[in-house]
């Protein structure tokens, strides 16, 4: 566990990291970024917390069991969205042209519209959830194991 200054700063900073990561995830279909990148940004925040506090301390608020459930959920949403298109073909982008994220942007350069992309924004979100949970679980489990703590199944 590091000094009080570090812990306080980390506590404040994690909020900004979360917001930035969520922004990258949510705008994946408009600007550079997406689920993987945004997820990795947020996991870097988790690693910061892990350094500032100890793994034992962090485990009180972030359980592996919870992370495992979250990861499975994200993965199931992703494959569920792919399976939902099977009325046409597996992995068909079935939301383009509907009322949910269905607007089609004008061809060529344009300022960008958040309500476009069909299943792509939803998939970005699912992948984001999955990456956050998965990589956090890996980092946390490694820290716990190296420190000789018990790792939940």
């Amino acid at each position, binding site marked *: 566990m590091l000094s009080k200054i570090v812990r306080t700063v980390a506590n404040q900073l994690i909020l900004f990291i979360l917001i930035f990561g969520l922004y990258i995830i949510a705008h994946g279909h*408009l*600007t*550079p970024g997406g689920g*993987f990148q945004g997820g990795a940004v947020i996991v870097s925040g988790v690693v910061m917390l892990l350094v500032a506090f100890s793994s034992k301390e962090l485990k009180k608020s972030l359980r592996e069991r919870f992370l495992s459930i979250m990861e499975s959920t994200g993965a199931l949403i992703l494959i569920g969205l792919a399976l939902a298109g099977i009325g046409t073909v597996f992995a068909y982008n079935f939301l383009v042209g509907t009322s949910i994220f269905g607007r089609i*942007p004008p061809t*060529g*350069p*344009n*300022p*960008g519209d958040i309500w476009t992309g069909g299943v792509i924004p939803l998939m970005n979100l699912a992948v984001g959830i999955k990456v956050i949970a998965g*990589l956090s679980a*890996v980092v946390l489990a*490694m820290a716990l*194991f*190296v420190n000789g703590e018990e790792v939940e199944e």
Partner: protein
Amino acid sequence: MEHIPLNFPFLAAALLAGVAFYIIIFKRNLIKLIMGVALLASAVNLFLVALGYRAGGNAPIYTDVPEGPMVLPVPQALTLTSIVINVAVLALMLTMVVHIYRHTGDIDSEKSRRLKG
């Protein structure tokens, strides 16, 4: 920079792969072996992403893009996939090395009977 001599980015990728092969073949420390694999992965990623470059191209994102050609999007997507895959592989490798260290107290591949060769 209309024309880069000697395909320099490709050359860099090939040489990086050479360094990685050197580490993988000759280093005995398991952590260094993992670093070699990571370096090889970087070399391949560099090669892939360099394949998609088009002279004077913009990023292939239509949001407020300036006029001009676009670089190829598929190599970027492949590189993204490959990076995530390598992160996963490295995580698993490091976990196993932690275990090997727990069991043998050493991460030298020559000292472990099974890891020789």
